[in-house]
């Protein structure tokens, strides 16, 4: 059976909240857990519970993914639970766009564009890799075994989509990674 080509498509729109605070403080960790239901992920990790995910972006920064409609409520929940603890929480739902890159060979497509190691032993489910795709910053994480989600800033969405499609279009697999 011929291999299905890798496809690039916009992922469903999702709400996003940037949260900056002292993530090392236990009180803040429990406040975030209380507000989102998810513990703070370790460096370069994404943790999910249902429709909500927490992404570790930096030592003092998380990105909350949730349904768009829940953003205002979750923002106020966060500010309630965090109370007077210094923090920044902002709706950034429109700042980024996400693409789904699906199909066997997605690792190769990404490895044409990012210096991050896409080897299946290294880039595994649960990892959020913030790196570069050609000339732009991007974040990506696995969505099941056969798909990767790629997040870029809105202003370069067209470039990112063109870039991914161009990488897909090149004929022939390199077969560098010994897994789908």
């Amino acid at each position, binding site marked *: 059976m011929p291999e299905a080509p890798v496809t690039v498509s916009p992922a469903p729109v999702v709400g996003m909240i940037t949260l900056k605070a002292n993530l090392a403080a236990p009180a803040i960790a429990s406040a975030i857990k209380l507000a989102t239901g998810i513990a703070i992920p370790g460096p370069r990790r994404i943790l999910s519970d249902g429709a909500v995910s927490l992404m570790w972006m930096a030592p003092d920064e998380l990105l909350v993914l949730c349904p768009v409609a829940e953003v205002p409520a979750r923002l106020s929940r966060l500010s309630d639970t965090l109370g007077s603890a210094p923090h*920044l929480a902002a709706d950034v739902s429109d700042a980024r766009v996400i693409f789904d890159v699906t199909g066997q060979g997605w690792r190769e497509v990404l490895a044409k564009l990012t210096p991050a190691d896409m080897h299946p032993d290294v880039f595994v489910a649960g990892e959020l890799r913030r790196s570069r795709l050609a000339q732009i910053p991007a974040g990506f994480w696995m969505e099941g075994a056969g798909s990767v989600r790629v997040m870029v800033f809105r*202003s370069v969405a067209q470039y990112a989509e*063109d870039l991914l499609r161009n990488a897909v279009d090149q004929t022939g697999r390199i077969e560098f990674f010994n897994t789908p």
Partner: protein
Amino acid sequence: MTGQRLDTGGRLIDRNKRLRFRFNDRWLTGYAGDTLASALIANGRTLVGRSFKYHRPRGIVASGAEEPNALVGLGRGARFEPNQRATITELFEGLTAESQNHWPSLEADIGAVNGALSKVFPAGFYYKTFIHPRPLWKHLFEPVIRRAAGLGKAPKMADADRYEHFYAHCDTLVAGGGVAGLAAALAAAEAGKRVIVLEQSSAWGGRAPVDGGAVAGTPVEAWVAETLAALRAMPNVHLRARTMVAGVYDHGYVIGYERVGDHDPAVGGPRHRLWRIRAEEIVAATGAIERPLSFAGNDIPGVMLASAVRDYVVNYGAAPGARTVVVTNNDDAYRTALALKRAGLAVPAILDARPKVTGALPAAARQAGLSIRTGAAVARIKGARGVIGVEVCDQDGSGAVKDELACDCVAMSGGWSPAVHLWSHTGGKLIWDDARAFFRPDPARPPVGANGAPSVRVVGAAAGYLHLGDILAGGETPDEAPLAPVWLMPAGAEIAKKAKMFVDFQNDVKVTDVELAAQEGYESVEHTKRYTTLGMATDQGKLSNVNGLAILSDALGQPIPATGTTTFRPPYSPISMGAIAGEARGDLFQPIRRTPMHARHEAAGAVWEPVGQWRRPYCFVRAGESKDAAVAREIRTTRNAVGMLDASTLGKLLVQGPDAGRLLDMLYTGKMSTLAEGRCRYGLMCSENGFLIDDGVVARLGPDTFLCHTTTGGADRIHAHMEEWIQTEWWDWQVYTANLTEHYAQVAVVGPQARRVLETLGGMDLSAEALPFMHWAEGTLGGIPARVFRISFSGELSYEVAVPAGHGPAFWDAVATAGAPYGITPYGTEALHVMRAEKGFIMIGDETDGTVIPQDLGLTWAISKKKDDYLGKRAQARSHMADPDRWQLVGLETLDGSVLPDGSYAVADGMNANGQANVEGRVTSTYHSPTLGRGIAMGLVHRGPDRMGEVLSFNRVDGGRIKARIVSPVFYDPEGEKQNA
């Protein structure tokens, strides 16, 4: 030379697959598996090019990447590429190649007259001859030299092919798929490492299958096949043929150059792939390169490296000649004699420069009935466009001819040089091995990585181990006797002979050129290289390097290690520009940042202006309208009715935390901590040196929350500036920042009718009472969540409305619809610039250039006197910063109403020390103002504000002068009645 295809043999070709190809104007045939070089040899094509300087006839010398002569222009039209090595160009059906540097034809080349004049083209000829008179260089010498010298033609069309990069990571990267490389790969793979093996050619095994030998009784070719099979079966190993390691860099970074489609353009996909590899360990198994011998006429077509001759016979069944004289200083070349004999070709003699020849290979040659002449040398090659014979002499002597041998090919070997390039790229040092007469990697001085450990390991011939027994346990090859170093043949050759001995074939550098350089005082090998151009051609001295520096050492009377080598730099051999660019061409050349309303602007006839990576509309041209007319219309409509501007690119930085006000008080010259919630304030940011770096409006969103607007170009830079201060100096302050630029679309609605337009949308009270100038409010407009800032960069009644970026296009449309009854127009950056200049507002990058402080711009009102400190405060107190003689901002009005040239200087009396006119000011912004119907400008003028009404004289490019009067920079509505309406 009468090259021909042999009836049998050729381990790499498939005689069942014939391929047609074209060389110059002739269609020829070859076989699948041929290189262009082997196919040309099989077709008897001896002459393949003309040399760089003297246009001497040149033939194929080598069989690999080291080839200096057989460079061709490959392909046609959009697939034409010059300087391609025939020796590594795999043949495919329909291949088209042309020889280079010939005119009018390869066979009858007019430039060959240069050769007759070679006495007037000595080393450093260009430097010596074409210095004076100076103007002649540009107009006469250079154009003529450029036509006469040089190799390939530049392509004339855009490249039709595609290229890509590929990032890979591994524990062990092995460069070279010969026996040593495969053995190293197997060892690493068996130890569980992630291994990548890159081989530059299409065949595995390196020289071993041709040169022979055995491993524990098994023929080495079988060992290669077994080892390859074992490696292929291991999931942790990736083997890649046709992929050359081009360079080794710091931190285990390796560039691999894969020629994916060169061997068969029909397969599609990228033509080349650039591998960008991070390796924990790099193993250089790059083999060795045979050296030519320096004898008179060694560049005549038909004189080849001995190893290349047997490669063509064994690998391709292509015989370079019917009668081949072998000339050598070592045992290895006897392999060529034996291979030729086995193929049924004549070997009239083996000329061995050594007085005694004792090794096993010579013994085998003797046994095969070959004639060996010891202590013998080539006095001269006979022939012009091809070898017709060899004059034989003694190596010890000046070249008295003893006899002649008729032949059509000469196989020469001056010994071997390890390919040390990858070891050397990151600083590995070499040691001269006197016994074996080559430079090899010095194990005591390897290249080291960040941790101080050796970063490259070198194995096999590249390390100096030329024999199978030294490379592999169980490797068996005949014992070889030591070579005798031969740098000149014969040893006592006179100058007439030396003037015909070529060291660098591609750049036409002869023994006499190197000696002349030494005589003229060039002692450093690096200087000699540049003076003579030795080793500077596209082959980067792969054949000429060691011979050249040995001759230089001899001329300088010093041992070879005292001379040393030139520097080995990546790439190992040239790689395509396309591979380097990868996908970055056409639409993907650079990321273009688009605002949410980009498509709307495109449809509305936007003329784009790049602002960093953003594209912003410069103006919106209507049918039949010029750009100037469009700008004037946009301004008039905005001033008289209403206009709309996409301001989404402006930086929007959120600053939040108990110390937010404290931070902003330090970053801005003004006091932001006292700003009331709901209010906006214009602020200036300076560097520590006091210079103005950005400006913008700050809005206080809450007790601990501010939104800082930056310039378009400042968004990322100022965010980084904030984070740098927070993270490195004020790390204990409780404040966080976030760059929200991309989250919002921002639309400025500007002009006397702006309020009415937004009121039509409905949802918020935007009256002068509810939302006065420099206030902001949040609500919904036309059902879209909006934050409305009442700020003005035009001097008009103006609202900047931020909506979530996803709502941007809908909001833009809603404003356009609501504004239609008022004649609303979108306007671009040029109208924005003109309107702000009419109002005397500064623009970062126009009025500032990194040397301007706010005080120069009359902005002292925006500098708080109540604060103890802010970034730049102390610098601004320095004597030169506080000097009243600094140039300061004024308006400028030409007396005749014309527009001052941009960047024009105000010329003062007298001359400076350099004989230039003194100046007393310069134009920073200059426009035609449609509002005022005349040219307006701003400029920085010596003591400008004290000189109102004075007339200055500004220069023009054509040498003329324009008179302009110093006026207030505020040309429009100085009282601010409009923006406050």
